[in-house]
């Protein structure tokens, strides 16, 4: 038995959440299937007009990723809240922000990173070229952590609220708008011959802002939710 530092605790929280998710695979797979199906329905519904598909692809893939990430948000704290683990986290001598950051990172590994990896494959259905696919993946790599971070605030605020799922969407979707604009915008800008770097830089700025503020805001919301 020995005391461990905050970084080791962060790692332990991530490992714990990943183990839990692997024991209940269906929850993770639902998110990924949802993304794959939403992104595949559009080419089927619109028909093989490659010029049109090409134009709408970034927006559709981004909205699909956003809704998929949203699906799994509610579970971020719900089970820990129901079984009392969240109380124990709040009473731990380790700062709650560290534990919350671990949970957010685990959420991104399970519901964000797979979307980044799947998007280029799904993008092929829209006839995107290699360069656009690379920019799409880059924008998602910067953007999906923002979705997890902002979503965590919403999940913490709606903790234990009846019908919290709908409320959670109403709270977080408006906050996702800037991420969506710059994320989808990066691919579009490149397609019309402008540089995508401006959009990606803004996404990176949003990400650093979210990394700084979201764990703090989530912690405050959780403490209120537990009272």
């Amino acid at each position, binding site marked *: *038995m020995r*005391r461990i530092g905050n970084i080791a605790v962060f790692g332990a*929280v991530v490992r*714990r959440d990943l183990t839990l998710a692997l024991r*209940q695979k269906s929850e993770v797979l639902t998110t990924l299937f949802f993304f794959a199906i939403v992104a595949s329905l559009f080419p089927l519904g619109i028909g093989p007009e490659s010029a049109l598909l090409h134009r709408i692809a970034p927006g559709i893939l981004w909205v699909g990723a956003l809704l998929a990430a949203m699906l799994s948000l509610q579970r971020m704290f719900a089970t820990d809240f129901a*079984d*009392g*683990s969240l109380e*124990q986290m709040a*009473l731990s001598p380790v700062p709650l922000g560290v534990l919350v950051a671990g949970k957010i990172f685990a959420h991104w590994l399970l519901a964000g990173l797979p979307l980044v990896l799947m998007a280029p494959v799904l993008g092929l259905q829209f006839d995107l070229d290699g360069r656009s696919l690379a920019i799409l993946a880059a924008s998602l790599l910067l953007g999906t952590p923002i979705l997890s971070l902002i979503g965590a605030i919403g999940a913490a605020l709606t903790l234990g609220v009846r019908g919290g799922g709908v409320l959670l969407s109403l709270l977080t979707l408006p906050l996702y708008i800037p991420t969506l604009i710059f994320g989808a915008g990066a691919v579009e800008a490149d397609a019309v011959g402008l540089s995508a770097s401006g959009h990606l830089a803004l996404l990176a700025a949003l990400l650093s802002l979210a990394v700084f503020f979201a764990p703090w805001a989530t912690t405050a919301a959780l403490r209120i939710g537990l009272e």
Partner: protein
Amino acid sequence: MLEGIQLACVRGERTLFSQLSFIVREGEPLLVQGANGAGKTSLLRMLCGLTLPAAGEVHWDGTPIGELGDAFRQDLLYLGHHNAIQESLTARENIKASAALSGVALEDAEASEALRHIGLRGREDLPTRFLSQGQKRRVALARLMWNKALLWVLDEPFVALDTAALGLLAGTIAGHLARGGLAVITSHQEVAIAGMPAQILDLSS
């Protein structure tokens, strides 16, 4: 020394208790009693800092717990109504994970030792959803076996336990008190904690 000063608890429009003052000293457990809904759990959550009292303050060694923050939580072990165990993890994974959440790394051997102590030998690697209610409670109680916190706040620790486990738990609490620990316990059952003069706080009166 844990001190409650003029505490009040208001739920909705009902005042559950007010002007409640007490001092918990080393080696002398505080037994909180009262009917259902008298505010026992609310009082315990106040003492941990999970809920803010409607009036009054909680002091730990003379300082308000809000000011101490993490330093107070270092000394605190809280066992609530909920077991805080994940059904899909095994007993061993559960106690290692809960130790990690409080900033302590437990080796496999130490985790097994704690589980053996609480009477779960041979159940270490079974997902906890296959355990009975009493066994799940024992997994939660395994935390008492390794935790070195000075102040134990236990909400109905005796619920769902069989006679053997009751004796074991009473012995563990007595050992903690004998080492100079503090304990605040709620219970409906009359449980004698061997050789300890207990302070009784009845919220119904």
